[in-house]
């Protein structure tokens, strides 16, 4: 009985314990499930966010700024990764000690670095674009609060060559000048944001199904400029600018057929690797004066006046005009020639560059027609070249032209043109009379260098008839021949054509022409018979010599002499003989021996002999004293074949003194 009672009480304890145990187990499981439910369902997004924040990091795959190439594919502007140092001031434990370390590495005063570190507890740049050595040394410091960021720096390996055309970018990679500015949208890369995992030790881990994106390069730009031609142009221009102690100088080389600018520069030159600070004396060097500054073109403008007059049949090639012996009163103002002339044919007006004749012809053509031609040649309007800051020039509205304005515009005063406008207008004449906009960019390229957009100069209008262009070209060819003002412009072995100009410079304070400041200009093309290149040389305020034929023409000659062989243009000058001590490949060994010492060899060559004969037969009416001709004071009769009686304009005879 007792046993039964004992068993009963044991059973009841057993069952109560068992129930309690079951309850505890079930309660524990419920608690676990409840907690899991809370973490996985209710607070799911919160915990996922925290996990992502610990593991996932965002970084940007760099997109390099597009490359700028010259026409031969040489790299003119290129982006290279470079690291920059930044700091979180609040995390720096000992700013003065850190500043001392950084000062040694960065070669900057410790005080200025410390000032940056203590100025703010937040983000602050310490130095942008470190060298590789500096970045490595800073990495070794492992200083908390100091961090390195991957950035990109723009490099210009050709330094000053084409510096003003290529332009530069600021420290944030934004185009500020030149092609860098005008094609900023095309060149600027867009970095790709990418998510990546990092473990507890901050090691990178790529678990995405797709491969990590590679750094891409944005679209590039191919220029029409040729680095070699640009270098030659700069070299020759600098030589002349230094020789004549010029204030500034400019040169443009253009392909006649395509209107592609092969070289364009202004002296002093600019190295885009050295970004100029504001108020820096070199800030102005970055400016491309060829497109952004106007000057009075002087006598070079006579070719456009002559084009207008011939095209309108107001004069003919062999018409003669009286030049009043070098001084006359036109429209109430006294106009002078550098040398006194009597009667000159239209060809001689260009060859000897008579201001009086040009003024008379301008008055004859009239402001309306002349103004239209000026506009059609591209003066007074933007050429549309892909360069920033282009200036349209200074051309007064025709309605406001007084007779004296019309007369002086005939010989390139009272008008302001840019070097590019002048070059392109000469290209119109050299190219047969059609206007096409100048071109500086030929292609937009994708990252692999394939062309995605091709740019061309399309001839938009005919300015003068082809016959007129041929006539003016013949006149311009005379300028570089014996007796012309531009004899120094002809490169050896080639024919050249052009026009000299010597313009007075307006004094900014007195608002009058300064008596001692000039702009020397030569613009023309080579070879004369089949124009390939138009070259314009402008030297501002030369000292010692002032004439375009003396200062600018030799630069033209030297550039042409080096560039034409480079472009594969063979020497073509008719009757040209090499200078006495230059050997010819087909000369006999005896002749070669003689060549170095005597002048006899060259003239003994077949062809050369006849050339010399021809040269010796030329009339000696014009004495050649260097580049500036001295024409006899006598009135020159017109050549017989020109039938002067039939074609004479007789402006001077009919209405003497009126013009």
């Amino acid at each position: 009985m007792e046993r039964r009672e004992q068993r009963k009480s044991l059973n009841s304890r057993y069952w109560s314990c068992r129930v309690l145990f079951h309850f505890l187990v079930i309660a524990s499981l419920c608690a676990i499930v409840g907690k899991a439910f809370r973490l996985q369902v209710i607070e799911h997004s919160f915990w996922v966010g925290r996990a992502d924040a610990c593991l996932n990091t965002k970084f940007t795959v760099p997109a390099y700024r597009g490359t700028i190439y010259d026409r031969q594919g040489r790299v003119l502007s290129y982006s290279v990764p470079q690291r920059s140092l930044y700091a979180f001031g609040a995390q720096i434990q000992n700013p003065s000690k850190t500043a001392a370390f950084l000062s040694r590495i960065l070669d900057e005063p410790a005080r200025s670095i410390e000032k940056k570190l203590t100025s703010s507890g937040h983000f602050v740049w310490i130095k942008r674009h470190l060298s590789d050595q500096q970045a490595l040394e800073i990495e070794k410091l492992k200083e908390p609060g100091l961090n390195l960021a991957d950035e990109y720096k723009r490099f210009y390996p050709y330094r000053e060559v084409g510096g003003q055309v290529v332009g530069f970018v600021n420290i944030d990679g934004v185009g500020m000048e030149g092609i860098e500015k005008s094609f900023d949208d095309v060149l600027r890369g867009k970095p790709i944001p990418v998510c990546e995992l990092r473990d507890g030790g901050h090691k990178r881990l790529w678990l995405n199904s797709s491969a990590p994106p590679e750094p891409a390069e944005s679209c590039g730009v191919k220029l029409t400029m040729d680095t070699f031609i640009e270098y030659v142009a700069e070299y020759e221009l600098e030589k002349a600018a230094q020789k004549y102690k010029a204030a500034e100088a400019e040169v443009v080389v253009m392909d006649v057929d395509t209107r592609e600018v092969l070289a364009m520069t202004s002296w002093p030159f600019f190295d885009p690797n050295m970004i100029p600070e504001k108020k820096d004396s070199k800030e102005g060097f970055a400016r491309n004066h060829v497109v952004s500054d106007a000057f009075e073109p002087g006598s070079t403008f006579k070719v456009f006046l002559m084009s207008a007059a011939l095209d309108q049949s107001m004069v003919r090639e062999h018409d003669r005009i009286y030049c009043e012996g070098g001084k006359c009163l036109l429209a109430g103002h006294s106009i002078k020639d550098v040398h006194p002339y009597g009667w000159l044919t239209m060809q001689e007006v260009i060859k000897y560059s008579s201001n009086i004749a040009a003024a008379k012809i301008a008055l004859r053509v009239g402001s309306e027609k002349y103004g239209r031609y000026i506009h059609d040649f591209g003066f007074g309007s933007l050429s549309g070249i892909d360069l920033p800051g282009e200036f349209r020039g200074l051309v007064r509205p025709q309605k406001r032209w007084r007779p004296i304005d019309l007369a002086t515009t005939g010989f390139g005063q009272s008008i302001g043109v840019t070097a590019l406008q002048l070059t392109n207008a000469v290209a119109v004449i050299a190219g047969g009379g059609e206007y096409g906009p100048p071109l500086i960019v030929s292609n937009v390229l994708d990252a692999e260098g394939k062309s995605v957009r091709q740019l061309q100069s399309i001839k938009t209008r005919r300015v003068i008839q082809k016959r007129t262009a041929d006539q003016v070209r013949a006149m311009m060819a005379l300028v570089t021949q014996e007796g012309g003002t531009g004899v120094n412009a002809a490169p050896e072995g080639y024919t050249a054509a052009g026009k000299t100009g010597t313009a007075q410079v307006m004094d900014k304070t007195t608002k009058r022409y300064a008596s001692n400041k000039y702009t020397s200009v030569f613009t023309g093309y080579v070879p004369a018979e089949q124009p390939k290149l138009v070259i314009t040389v402008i030297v501002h305020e030369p000292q010692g010599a002032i004439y375009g034929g003396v200062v600018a023409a030799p630069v033209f000659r030297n550039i042409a002499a080096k560039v034409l062989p480079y472009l594969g243009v063979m020497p073509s000058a008719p009757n040209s003989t090499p200078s006495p001590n230059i050997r010819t490949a087909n000369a006999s060994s005896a002749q070669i021996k003689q060549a170095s010492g005597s002048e006899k060899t060259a003239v003994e060559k077949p062809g050369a002999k006849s050339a010399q004969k021809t040269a010796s037969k030329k009339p000696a009416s014009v004495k050649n004293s260097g580049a500036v001709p001295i024409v006899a004071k006598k009135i020159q009769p017109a050549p017989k074949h020109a039938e002067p009686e039939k074609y004479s304009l007789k402006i001077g005879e009919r209405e003497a003194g009126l013009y």
Partner: protein
Amino acid sequence: MWAWLASAIILGVVFVTCAIFYVWLYVQQIQNGYRLSKIYEESELLSTVQRKLTIEWSRFRDPQRLGEIGQNQFSLAPPRPDQKVVMR
């Protein structure tokens, strides 16, 4: 009874094998992820070096620099008239 036990053991072995295989795959994936990241970093570095070499190469082709080297190191100068030969 024995048949049931055998099939349970086989299923268990298969399950454990699959689980081990899954873990092995996951470990491989992680390791490949690290390897890929490393290769990616190397590729970035090489790309940087390549870009720097491109700049160096372009710098060597600078006509201004070549002119200076020609003049200063090799005493080169434009030919005198008597050194020129006209090819005709």
